[in-house]
């Protein structure tokens, strides 16, 4: 407790201007920056997978299962930062028992469960079902045990059953696209609907969140595809990689347009909150917004991939560039979440002053936990790729 107060006294001494006395402490910290980031990665990876499944962009086939498994790994971890942030986490079941119909946050439990069970798990199951049956007959040990259980007692692997799997998988993916939109869009709405906070309150917020989510998800799958291929010492399908980069480029343009529109609109109208927001962006957020999010996370990737659309250099150069671009896009989108969540709490609702954000490295809300929640899904993904290797599937999807 004493340490907590010490940290608050320090923040009090760093107050710039006037803040309401209760605003000294930022209530939503790194964990709340992380949650939209993770669900964004899930939604984005899923949308990339659905591009192949629903819109029949066959060239993306090598990354289809990879994208789904990535989405699953991150989705399994998604709740953790949220629950660990609650002051009374043992009561979190209440969100299922008495969800408030007027609260955007109350949708969380239901949309998460729906998306996890009905969309993601079922889609992966239908896609792998035939392979599970085949693998259950040919493997040993833990894997055999797992495959036998997961087939749920159905052992058909003929053409007809494969066709049905395909149809149902298609149907679920179609259902999954709006579900993915809701899974991440509602987070944008949580922020966008807070009329008390002028930095958050904009109609564009759910849409901006969604498109930046797609950007981050696509970049993630791109990077993971390259890393997995490198680990497996397998040649990368350049056509696939070029197409992923192309989609990343297009969605990044839309995302950048939306965010610029929001800012231009703000600057032009210059209503009551603009004076403080101007100081916020040019001051406390100058590094995280102007440099990390805009320059590093948007302008450079747009420039690089855009250039490749006009002139395609050698494969080796493209691969290095894509990897580099994927990483900086991921960093840039993390900072986009940072700028929204932390930025919105740095200035007072009195529009007259600033508090400060002093992040810690240890403890439940520190950078350490951020690293844990980001590395854990990668470990889960490694396990899933070992358990259900996409490259060992019998190719029956003609």
């Amino acid at each position, binding site marked *: 407790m004493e340490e907590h107060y010490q940290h608050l006294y320090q923040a009090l001494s760093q107050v710039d201007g006037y803040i309401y006395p209760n605003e000294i402490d930022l209530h939503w910290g790194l964990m709340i920056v992380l949650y939209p980031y993770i669900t964004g990665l899930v939604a984005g990876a899923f949308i990339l997978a659905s591009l192949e499944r629903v819109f029949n962009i066959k060239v993306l086939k090598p990354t289809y299962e990879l994208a789904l498994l990535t989405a699953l790994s991150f989705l399994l971890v998604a709740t953790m930062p949220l629950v660990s942030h609650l002051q009374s986490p043992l009561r979190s079941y209440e969100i299922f*028992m*008495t969800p408030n119909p007027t609260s955007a946050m109350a949708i969380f439990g239901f949309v998460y469960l729906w998306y996890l069970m009905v969309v993601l798990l079922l889609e992966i199951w239908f896609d792998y079902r035939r392979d599970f049956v085949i693998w259950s007959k040919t493997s040993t040990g833990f894997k055999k045990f797992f495959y036998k259980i997961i087939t749920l007692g*159905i052992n*058909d692997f003929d053409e007809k059953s494969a066709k049905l799997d395909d149809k*149902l998988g298609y149907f679920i993916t179609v259902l999954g696209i709006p579900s993915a939109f809701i899974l991440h869009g509602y987070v944008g709405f949580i922020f966008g609907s807070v009329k008390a906070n002028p930095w958050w309150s904009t109609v564009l917020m759910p849409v901006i969140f969604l498109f930046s989510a797609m950007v981050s998800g696509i970049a993630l799958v791109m990077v993971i595809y390259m890393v997995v291929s490198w680990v497996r010492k397998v040649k990368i399908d350049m056509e696939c990689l070029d197409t992923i980069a192309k989609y990343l480029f297009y969605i990044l343009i839309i995302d950048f347009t939306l965010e610029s529109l929001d800012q231009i609109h703000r600057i032009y109208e210059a209503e009551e909150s603009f004076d403080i927001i101007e100081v916020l962006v040019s001051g406390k957020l100058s590094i995280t917004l102007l440099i990390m999010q805009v320059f590093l996370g948007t302008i450079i990737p747009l420039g690089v991939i855009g250039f490749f659309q006009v002139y395609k250099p050698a494969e080796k150069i493209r691969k290095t560039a894509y990897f580099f671009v994927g990483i900086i896009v991921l960093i840039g989108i993390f900072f986009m979440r940072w700028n929204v969540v932390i930025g919105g709490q740095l200035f007072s609702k009195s529009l007259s002053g600033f508090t400060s954000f002093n992040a810690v490295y240890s403890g439940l809300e520190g950078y350490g936990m951020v690293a844990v929640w980001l590395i854990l899904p990668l470990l889960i993904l490694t396990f899933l790729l070992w358990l259900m290797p996409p490259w060992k599937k019998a190719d029956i999807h003609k």
Partner: protein
Amino acid sequence: MPKLIFRLFFSFVLFVSVFILIQQQLKPESFGKYGHYRANSIDDNMMRTSYYKGEEKCSTCHEEVADLKSNDLHSGVSCESCHSPKIDASIECEVMPPKVEGNLEFCGQCHAMNLGRLKKGAPQLDFKEHKEGQNCIECHNPHAPWELKEN
């Protein structure tokens, strides 16, 4: 194959039904009576302990002081304004609330010169000019401030 589909479908329906059943069990009683909240919480909020008793309560024992105060300029100031109940001592004032220091800092809470306070009903004093270094109560009776003690 369709057998499996129906199995999946029915297990979904089963899950939803079990969920709704558990939800009804775990929902606290009195929830939803007046709105989307636990109605018994209204009673919980009513049951808190009160520490401030109100001037009338003070007057029942401290009649003389109350009379004195009611005839002078501090009549509009309630007893507990200066004598705040100390909760770790007791909530009944049989145990004396600690003596209030009648010094410049304390009385200055209302009476120190501040341009934001002019013409609002509390006489303003610049304490540098007015008896700096002394305690207010050396000259003023706090319950009857215009009754000045002889110097």
